[in-house]
């Protein structure tokens, strides 16, 4: 990833001089009232009453929070292969409007990101994007769960996270080998926990609603048995494992116990798993179909508790665009997935009863560290806002309220389940490598 960190055709010094004025700076070191001066793509000064240099662009941050740019561990950019649903360009624009300065691109593209050629292609396509695109590689060739992808070669290109997302690695033996191999490389495996034999052809959470609606269900245990299996494998191998989009109370509890034991286990949850329940599917609208499925209120509550008590390390969007013609099918035939990049911050502020600094930890610096994009790993994401730090920043108005308008989203697709929902907390400006890519909630390119 670092190999593509510099954008050609524009050295960092060509970025404008910025003054972010009047906000409260919040990062992992705490919060203070300060202006932020950005020169040449780098934070130059963080103090009150910074004088505006001649020719500098002033971004008003009055009543706002200035934070490290958000980092999404789980974005489907769809390029290459499904450009009618999303492109790297449209997806990263949606990301910047959501406050993100980096996204981890999931490998279930067409072709999948299971080879050096495929990874290099996405890295090159991402050079002009308005956010950093960190490529996740596939664990297995073709994401078929049969044999390992060339993980060492992909790691040499900067890949730090490997996943067959969309499917879990079904074979315990192969997953064990993958964990051993990943440990040797110092990379992290990220599992989409879903036992295929239990999930079968389920299309929503198996429970009271699926029983009434006659929709084939995915039982909670389909997720939980794989979480349990992989914790056991992580213990046996000593490898790190990251759990993608956990959605049930038992999964959260398994991770809580594994962490108490000291295992190198981390977990993310998606905003829809703390803001929607399976009751939303009662009208058969496929916009509410997602994998793992929306769960009942008891699971939603457990996800929130996991976010509050530190069991869960990150909020990750699982932004999964689908063009209308492919999404608007009968519920059981529709592909799972929903848009997430532009609504995650607002949902976290609105739905979670957490201090803003905790929300930002879950959306910015903790995922940055998990993705290996933070300063500790030599990256420029999620670090403290101090002189010398790369200027990847977002400016948030935590009290602003807004209504989600599906037609106004930057994604090429429209499959947001939040159309018409009123949210508190809005992204005002986003600065990527010193460039103001969002000003007053408008994308600049």
């Amino acid at each position, binding site marked *: 990833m670092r190999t593509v960190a510099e954008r050609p055709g524009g050295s960092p010094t060509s970025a404008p001089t910025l003054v972010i004025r009047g906000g409260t700076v919040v990062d992992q070191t705490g919060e203070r009232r300060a202006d932020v001066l950005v020169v040449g793509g780098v934070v130059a000064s963080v103090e009150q009453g910074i004088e505006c240099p001649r020719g500098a662009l002033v971004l008003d941050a009055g009543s706002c929070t200035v934070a490290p740019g958000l980092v999404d561990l789980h974005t489907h950019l769809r390029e290459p292969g499904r450009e009618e649903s999303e492109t790297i360009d449209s997806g990263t624009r949606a990301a910047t409007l959501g406050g993100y300065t980096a996204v981890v691109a999931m490998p279930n593209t067409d072709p999948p990101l299971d080879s050096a050629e495929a990874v290099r292609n996405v890295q090159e396509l991402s050079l002009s994007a308005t956010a950093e695109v960190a490529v996740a590689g596939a664990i297995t060739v073709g994401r078929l769960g049969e044999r390992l992808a060339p993980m060492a070669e992909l790691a040499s290109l900067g890949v730090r996270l490997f996943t067959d997302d969309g499917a879990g690695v079904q074979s315990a033996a192969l997953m064990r080998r993958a964990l051993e191999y990943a440990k040797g490389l110092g990379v992290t495996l990220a599992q989409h926990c879903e036992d295929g034999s239990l999930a079968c052809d389920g299309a929503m959470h198996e429970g009271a609603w*699926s029983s009434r609606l006659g929709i*084939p269900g995915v039982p909670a245990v389909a997720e939980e048995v794989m979480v349990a299996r992989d914790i056991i494998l992580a213990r046996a191998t000593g490898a790190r494992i990251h759990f993608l989009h956990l959605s049930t109370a038992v999964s959260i509890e398994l991770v809580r116990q594994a962490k108490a034991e000291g295992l190198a286990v981390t977990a993310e949850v998606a905003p829809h798993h703390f803001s929607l329940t399976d009751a939303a599917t009662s*009208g058969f609208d496929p916009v509410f179909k997602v994998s793992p499925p929306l769960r009942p209120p008891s699971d939603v509550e457990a996800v929130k508790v996991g976010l509050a008590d530190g069991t869960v390390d990150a909020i990750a969007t699982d932004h999964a665009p689908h063009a209308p013609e492919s999404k608007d099918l009968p519920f059981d035939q529709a592909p799972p997935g929903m848009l997430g990049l532009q609504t995650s911050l607002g949902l976290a502020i609105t739905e979670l009863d957490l201090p803003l600094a905790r929300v930002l930890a879950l959306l910015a610096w903790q995922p940055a560290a998990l993705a290996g994009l933070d300063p500790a790993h030599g990256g420029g994401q999620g670090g403290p806002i101090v002189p010398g730090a790369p200027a990847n920043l977002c400016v948030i108005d935590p009290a602003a309220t807004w209504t989600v308008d599906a037609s106004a989203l930057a994604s090429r697709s429209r499959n947001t389940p939040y159309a018409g929902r009123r949210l508190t907390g809005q992204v005002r400006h986003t600065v990527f490598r010193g460039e103001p890519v969002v000003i007053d909630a408008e994308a600049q390119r």
Partner: protein
Amino acid sequence: MDDLGAEEVSEVLRVADSFVEVGRRANPKVPALRGRTVATLFFEDSTRTRMSFETAAKRMSADVLSFAAGSSSLKKGESLRDTVETIEAIGIDSVIIRHSSAGVPARVAQWVDHCAVINAGDGWHQHPTQALLDLYTVRQAFGGGDAGLARFEGLQVVVVGDIRHSRVARSQISAYAALGAEVTLVAPATLLPPSLEGWPVASVGHDLDAVLPKADVVSLLRLQSERGSGTFVPSLREYTAGYGLTSRRAAMLHPDAVILHPGPIVRGVEIASEVAELPAARITDQVSNGVAIRMAVLFLLLGQGPVDGAHRG
């Protein structure tokens, strides 16, 4: 079906009475829907239900179009929504939809403005006219009319078999309960829905012999063999041993009890061949009543002036 209360169910049954009478005439045709056009949209194979609906519509003098999904533009890549909007634009008054996916008729009803949508069975979800014709058949067996209707209060209904995968069960359980019947479910645990939260059932069990003596109605469901042996039950043989209505079990029923089956019946599995021939078995009555019920539904939706948003799930 959940949205239909006792009043509305009773109304359908009363209207069906007059159409049963029509069916007995030498010329069983009335002009009630002359000038109306209905289309059957069957995305899932079904001979019986389609024939029943088309017969019902023709006896009402409606013009009937038959849309076979297999030979339609859907095969050419047209979306369901575009197909439905095209059909509405043609000026069809009602579409009768059968689909293997739950929820399709409900979605279609949201997409159309003035076309009445009738659910002829969607996935495992609902099959409302089947439930209504079952009720009609039971009422008929108990003497018909309002007296027959009154018998539903406290009536002991036993639903046996693959409830998990049954749209008929989901519709009829609500319908029986709406009229005051007490519904008992009997099935292997694997063929019950994962959750019965909110279902209007009095009891659930696995012992058919224990409930038959007090049953007034035994409603058998087809064991969907495609989901059958090895997965949900070990074998058809073992299923029949536990849940088949054999002669021995039929003898446990009291003399007035009624046996129903939505068809197609699989003789020797959920019902013994000789039991299907007993006077208590009303399986052919169900079929002929089905036409009258569907005439009643069409009449109530289309026969009384302008139609608006008439989806009945």
